[in-house]
């Protein structure tokens, strides 16, 4: 990312403000995510990190500010239009479709790429069948990549938490996103699961060149994985920079990191 002429960042969040009644979730937050970058969004609980992700995915709409994706104003887009742009995400509380198998869950990630009429689908013939099998082949590659072959026919509700998170990641990847938003992808995991997840995220980035924005609490993960860090507190951005810069920033230390005890 050094030396190259400044390409337009993939995502630009420009002065976004979001409120729910009297609660100000975000206040004039601006940030950018460059193509191919991994940006971490950190901050104490209630800082507005998930709200920021929700705004970018089109679930909330800001009352001021703009969101630009690939240079185009996308502020008022509905969630399914945002998904169609190539933005995929995972959720803080795993939002898998509990009644479906892992395979079906990941296949839902391909829904945007599936065309066709329900009539042909009902006949499961010709183009409908070919399309279904082609998507299945693609999804199987993701299943291999994330090493979840053994559970592909398990109903999602039966999976342990760590695996559910991985399946959610698979579902997001199935959409072949240009931008991947991960909301606390490692929450509730033990050390081994976190290492695995870290590895997968880096592999995704290396293999597919996906731009990634992730919300995360674990600072060691953030240090290892991200190119840049954005820090939120009480709905405002209080710092931004490389992991090292942010770690030493006094405002960040005050609000969030604290100092190690002597």
């Amino acid at each position, binding site marked *: 990312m050094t030396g190259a002429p400044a390409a337009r960042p993939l995502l630009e969040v420009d002065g976004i403000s979001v409120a*729910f009644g009297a609660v100000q979730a975000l206040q004039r937050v601006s940030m950018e995510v460059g193509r191919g970058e991994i940006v971490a969004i950190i901050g104490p609980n209630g800082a507005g990190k*998930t709200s920021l992700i*929700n705004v970018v995915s089109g*679930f909330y709409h800001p009352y001021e500010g703009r969101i630009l994706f690939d240079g185009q104003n996308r502020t008022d887009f509905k969630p399914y239009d945002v998904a169609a742009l190539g933005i995929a995400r995972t*959720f*803080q509380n795993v*939002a898998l479709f509990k009644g479906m198998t892992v395979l079906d869950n990941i296949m839902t990630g391909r829904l945007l790429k599936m065309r066709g009429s329900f009539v042909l689908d009902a006949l499961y013939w010709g183009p409908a069948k070919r399309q279904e099998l082609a998507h299945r082949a693609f999804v199987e590659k993701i299943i291999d990549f994330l090493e979840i072959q053994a559970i592909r026919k398990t109903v999602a509700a039966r999976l342990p938490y760590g695996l559910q998170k991985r399946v959610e990641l698979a579902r997001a990847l199935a959409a072949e996103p240009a931008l991947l938003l991960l909301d606390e992808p490692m929450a509730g995991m033990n050390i081994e699961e976190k290492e695995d997840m870290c590895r997968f995220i880096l592999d995704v980035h290396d293999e597919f060149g996906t731009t990634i924005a992730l919300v995360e609490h674990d600072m060691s993960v953030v240090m290892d994985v991200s190119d840049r860090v954005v820090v939120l507190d009480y709905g405002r951005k209080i710092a931004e920079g490389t992991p090292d810069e942010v770690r030493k920033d006094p405002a960040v230390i005050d609000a969030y990191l604290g100092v190690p005890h002597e």
Partner: protein
Amino acid sequence: MGILHAVLVAPFVDIASNPRFLAEVLIGGVASGLMYSLVALGFVLIFKASGVFNFAQGVMVLFAALNLVGLMDLGVPVPVALVLTMAIMVALAFAIERVVLRPLVNQEHIILFMATIGLNFFLEGFGEMIWGANVKKLDVGIPDRSFITAGIQMNQLELIAAVTAGILVAVLAVFFQRTRIGRALRAVADDHEAALSIGIPLKTIWVVVWSVAGLVAIVAGIMWGAKSGVQFSLSLIALKALPVLILGGFTSVPGAIVGGLIIGVGEKIGEVYWGPLVGGAIENWFAYVVALAFLLFRPQGLYGERIIERV
């Protein structure tokens, strides 16, 4: 052109031309609206306190009325019959808690709702099996004469029903807002498991609530039964109470009254003034269509809370 006139102008002319008649129609609407409210109150109680949408509320009204009439027909004096019926409803509450609610405590609300549909059919068959299926006259000594005030004809029974409903609402509203048990009930409605974990005795709460709903059902049963006899169609009233709940919100005690009044009055006015245009029987669907229209603009009802979905 003629149609537009008939629908948009003529009925209003009718309304304006005979105020006395309009007043009688309104009173009739208020009366039937209050009846609906009484049934809806039972729903609200149970929903407010346990989050269960009790589809069987209407049948509970029927069941209460059937037991009361049956006992009275056997020669039991009215006050004793009332006490016995109350005891039966409490026993029913125990049974429902044990057989239906406890096994399903962790299930989603839709499962509980369907369980109450099953309960509905069971109680209907059971009640009729014990007491028979013919229409019975219910006479608990409430006067049912019509009288004329200010040139408007009114009915004593309907007046008493109105007053009773008002008292019930006031008592219940105070109960929920001011008492400890009321608070506990609200906690249970929010989250069963959380309530359990802070030591609220779920079983007791549920028996209490369903018993109170049973009491409300008895009152409703008496009112309805005195007015139109105790018969199977009482349980269909429950279906009418659903639009009332939609208007009034599922968790609002005053909302049940307001919703009932709106539906009752709306239905009557629609039937009397617009009904003849389409051959009558508008009452069959009017309430539901109003509820539907309402839902489109305000999915949470008049008094319900706006649900903010979180992701």
